[in-house]
């Protein structure tokens, strides 16, 4: 699984919308404490989605931290 960590709630929701538009499956989870103490949300996806996530991230110009679990 990969976990996408964002800087703010706004960014999570922005990327969530992009994933939905591209029909990519994901789950919204509370951000694991070891990555950030934000009272926020993170996105969890299957490892296969890594490449498409990378390209969507580049397209969007967003700064997303991708962690492999």
């Amino acid at each position, binding site marked *: 699984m990969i976990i996408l960590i964002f800087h703010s709630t706004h960014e999570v*929701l922005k990327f969530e919308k992009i994933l939905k538009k591209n029909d990519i499956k994901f789950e919204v989870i509370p951000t694991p404490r070891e990555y950030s103490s934000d*009272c926020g949300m993170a996105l969890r996806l299957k490892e296969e989605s890594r490449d498409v996530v990378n390209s969507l991230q580049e397209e969007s110009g967003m700064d997303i931290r991708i962690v492999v679990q």
Partner: protein
Amino acid sequence: MTDEIIYFDNGATSWPKPEEVVEAMNDYMTSVGASPGRSGHRKAFDAARIVFEAREAVAELFNVRDSRNVVFTPNATGALNMAIKGIVNPDDHIITTSMEHNSVIRPLTYLQENQSVSFTMVGNNDHGDFDIDKFRNSFTDKTKLVVMNHGSNVSGRILPIQNIGEICRENGVVLVVDAAQSAGTVDIDMARDNIDILAFTGHKSLFGPQGTGGLCINGDIDIRPMLHGGSGSKSELDHHPDFMPDKLEAGTLNTVGIAGLLAGIEYINVVGLGNIIKKEREMTRILIDGLRQIDNVVVYGLGSDERLPVISFNISGMRPSDVGYRLDKDYHIMTRVGLHCAPHAHRTIGSFPDGTVRFSLSYMNSLEQIEKVLEAVKEIAK
């Protein structure tokens, strides 16, 4: 005689709201209810999505490049205070108009009295239009900000914002537009109209509930936050975040209100802003034409056809408050009388100090109501 209420006070707040707005707020209270962007459970995510979608809807409506630059405030007054006080420094100069609402004049006066800020109020020319030449000549090397109301809540006149914005760009000065009366009833495009910062309210022509409003920033303009506090981000830091939208928001938002605002904007998109404007302009024209035909009635600030659905008038020999009272008591017609929190506007149009009776329409009003109102004014003016 029916006791039907004829609500002509939409300039104060719009009523009734579309059903969809009330439903959206009800849905939020019963099914969602959580605080957006704080906890990590599904209800919190749902709440956060509503707020996010509302930012996107506002960004689309006004053509804001990035929805992260839409921040929510309790009202337009809050947004204007944040923009003005967040940009202006001591000794700066500001240009505004002579038709402003107190939500602009009072912050400017405060800054003038406490931070040696100076400001110029540009009036109208001989034709009753904004004096754009005087405006051009008002810039000094200390001018930091231009803040103006897009549409007057007293006379209904709409400023040539695109032109004003161009002149601001030429002078390298930020333009803040008070769109409290114009959002949802005038086509606003921040890029096309050269608007840097837009302050809007949710509870007038955007059909949201009271307690909503915001600021849209189209560009890299540094605004000092007014509030510092919890943001749902970087909680380990004692410093408030410096990225948008968190930078200019703190604490729990009026989520139920924002759910309503989102539904209001969606309603506007379904009906079509063009259709709303068309109906409002037609009703306004008929109302003005009808009023002008009544003896003893004075209608103020008549200028171009392009105006807000806001009309100020008086009946000679009667105090505005007495006219308003009779309209309410005898005819069930709601209006707002007096100075409308914009004393300078009344000075400018010649109705100071008594003020005027103001009719302000919304898409929810009808031609039938206009006929009844004209009959009522005719009776009272005899």
